[in-house]
């Protein structure tokens, strides 16, 4: 009876296959959302200042290409926090605590950067690893609370965002070797602790983007090719079934959040260890009691990338790209905040783009089937609300 509803046209079969493939529909859905978001952005620009709107919009779209180095530089931390959120999502955990993990990562990296005297060749590597450990620690705690005490990870991680922020601010301000009070920021990191630059002029882009993409690929493999990934996704889909199958869900919850924390912590380390374009200078940390925004940006990146590590690479780079373009658009008098609005709108549309996508697919399908068999009863009387 199946073949009654489905036409046998080959073209249609192909179309159906494409429509069914999950990755593809997520991808086209994201594209659709981006398109809508950009149209929305263009409308805002038109309203704000019609005269320059075309040039400004053009800059927003392609300006990033003039600053490829910066695009990748700014993509790195959000790529990492995106992975931190997305990876946990796969297990059904909402890691809203990437901010705290990111901040802890920064602190640990800074600490090793300032306090440990190590050979130049390995100093920065140890700093990175320290950052990772910091993030892991801040992922471990919500993990333990979730696994053993059934405390909702959303609250724990919100709480630990604040605790981490206060703690790090206090620890940094209390450390004379790290903090310059008259500048309200940390001192300049020794060059040995800074990451090797990729040498693109006027840009701080450095080796961390390569590490970040590598890590994303590794996570992709872990998720899709390993028994751990198999367990993790199974637990995310159905924790009862995973328990039934003998998976150790407590261990997996903790492990997942620790890995997620490691990603965010690395993100913090990558951000703070980035080399400066000015000799002798470096990135600095300002203890001003503010939750790291990059943690929350990670949520957006993860969502736009459909929590898929490969998708997250693209979404991080894309978001960074239009942000850089947006900065350039300010040359035409546009406020860079427009970009934040556009990104938010893109995320919003991406939430139901999947649905729009399938609606479009259904439309096409209906047309085909109408052509193919006229006697087929129309299937469109979907029961409404």
């Amino acid at each position: 009876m199946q073949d009654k509803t489905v036409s046998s046209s080959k073209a249609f079969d192909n179309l159906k296959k494409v429509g069914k493939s999950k990755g593809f529909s997520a991808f086209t859905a994201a594209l659709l959302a981006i398109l809508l978001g950009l149209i929305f952005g263009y409308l805002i620009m038109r309203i704000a200042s019609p005269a320059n709107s075309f040039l400004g919009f053009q800059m927003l779209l392609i300006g990033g290409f003039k600053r490829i180095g910066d695009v990748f530089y700014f993509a790195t931390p959000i790529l990492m926090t995106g992975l931190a959120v997305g990876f946990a999502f796969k297990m059904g955990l909402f890691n809203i605590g990437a901010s705290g993990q990111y901040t802890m990562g920064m602190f640990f990296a800074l600490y090793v950067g300032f306090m440990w005297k190590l050979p130049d060749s390995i100093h920065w590597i140890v700093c990175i690893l320290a950052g990772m450990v910091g993030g892991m620690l801040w992922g471990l705690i919500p993990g333990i609370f979730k696994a053993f005490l059934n405390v909702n990870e959303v609250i724990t991680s919100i709480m630990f965002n604040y605790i981490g922020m206060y703690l790090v601010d206090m620890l940094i301000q209390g450390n004379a070797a790290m903090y310059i009070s008259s500048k309200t920021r940390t001192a300049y990191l020794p060059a040995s602790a800074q990451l090797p630059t990729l040498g693109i002029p006027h840009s701080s882009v450095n080796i961390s983007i390569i590490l970040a993409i590598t890590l994303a690929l590794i996570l992709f493999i872990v998720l899709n090719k390993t028994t751990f990934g198999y367990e993790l996704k199974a637990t995310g889909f159905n924790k009862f079934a995973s328990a039934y199958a003998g998976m150790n869900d407590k261990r997996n919850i903790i492990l997942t959040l620790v890995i997620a924390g490691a990603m965010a912590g690395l993100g913090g380390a990558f951000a703070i260890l980035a080399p400066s374009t000015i000799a002798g200078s470096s990135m600095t940390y300002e203890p001003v009691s503010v939750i790291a925004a990059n943690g929350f940006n990670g949520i957006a990146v993860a969502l736009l990338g459909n929590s898929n590590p490969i998708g997250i690479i693209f979404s991080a780079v894309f978001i960074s790209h239009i942000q850089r373009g947006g900065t350039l658009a300010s040359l035409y008098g546009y406020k860079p905040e427009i970009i934040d609005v556009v990104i938010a709108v893109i995320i919003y549309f991406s939430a139901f783009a999947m649905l729009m996508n399938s609606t479009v697919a259904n439309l096409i399908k209906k047309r085909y089937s109408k052509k193919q068999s006229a006697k087929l009863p129309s299937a469109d009387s979907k029961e409404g609300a």
Partner: protein
Amino acid sequence: MENYIIEMLNITKEFPGIIANDNITLRLKKGEIHALLGENGAGKSTLMSVLFGLYQPEKGEIKKNGKVVKINNPNDANDLGIGMVHQHFKLIDIFTVLENIILGVEPNKLGFLQKKQAREKVLKLSKQYGLEVNPDALIEKISVGMQQRVEILKMLYRDNDILIFDEPTAVLTPQEIDELMEIMREFAREGKSILFITHKLNEIMAVADRCTVLRKGKYIGNVAIKDTTKEELSRMMVGRDVNFKVHKKTKELGDVVLSAHNITVSSKIHKNNAVKNVSFNVRAGEIVCLAGIDGNGQTELVSALTGLEKISSGSITLGGKNITKANIRTRSMSGISHIPEDRHKYGLVLDYSLEKNLVLQRYWQPEFQTFGFIKTKAVRSYADRLIKQYDVRSGQGPITPVRSMSGGNQQKAILAREIDKEHELIIAVQPTRGLDVGAIEYIHKQLVARRDAGKAVLLVSLELEEVMNLSDRILVMYEGEIVGELDAKATTVQELGLYMSGAKRSITKENENAG
């Protein structure tokens, strides 16, 4: 022209990729009990949902008392006096019985609930029909049978006189089934009209006046019960003869495989222990059945045996090895296969493909992974083999999302997985719940084959027919204890029922002081 209260004429209802009802006509007379019969997925529930206003048909019309009516939602159905007890109960766990009954038709003043008058009406109805309930009990704390009473009271409370029962007996004990049959007859005597879905032909023969049969979404025919037989009905339903009796060879008993000693499990629902000091053995080559009314500790006992739940005291040995403290994985590796009661909650990862579900118990074995990397090719060929061997049907073979498979085939997949894995003991909990006769026949054959292959089988079932048919030995559980051990060949359904209801017990509380 007969006098029909409801006529469903030429109903067609489609779901994406499937026509669930294809030009079906069903006529219900006033005051009759009308059975609706068909295999799993034949479209019975769908047809009833159309009548109840949950789905809109693509084609066809519905008449009440000869007049065409439009039923857009359950409210319309309710206005026409149509009520429905759903196959999967539609009750809110954390609400009280009373709240569930009035939900949707709440008596209120200016929007404020007036529970008092509702309570009186409910108590009156429950007395009138012998449907005893506590209006203030939370649904999550009452038994399934009690929940069904609530569903029936929901209809009565709404003064419905066209009552739809979708597989109401699947979850009941024999006594409860008898009571329900009596209540249905009482309704019919009062002039209420009943549509009754069941897979159990005995029940149809016992109460129904007429029966409409569907197969694969199509109308097959309508017969008067007094003019037909069970065999004819089942032939109409599946298109071939069905074997109801399971054939078992007598078999030598082997060694003790599973031995449970003084097991006590505390309850998650109430303060008492769910399982109290239970001891028993299962040997190789026998099917032991844990019979009992739902909620008497079987679920908890199984959870304890499989490791899903911790026990508060006692010990468990499997093939001589103490596994009391072992985790689920270890127990599974030591030879326990488990067909869980709730296949959607425990048995399957619905969002995984069929092949991934087929290795759910084995993905970590060297056959399927090296250094933590899954061997996709090995998984695929393994899945292909199981699918073929156990005739698991699905749209896209190994890569079908399990969610989209039919219930019977989902169950077959679990069965294939658990049987194919190395095991000494199969614990099968309600393995045929909600399945049609064809599927049941298949699963029964497989379980008997395991027994014949010298494995131990522990079957937990609420269905007496299944218990009587399959088991060699029956252990009856009542209020967390084993109250009787019966020889399946030497006992009767009636006797079993007495044990299950607590009216009789043959095993004394010998170990009372041990816990």
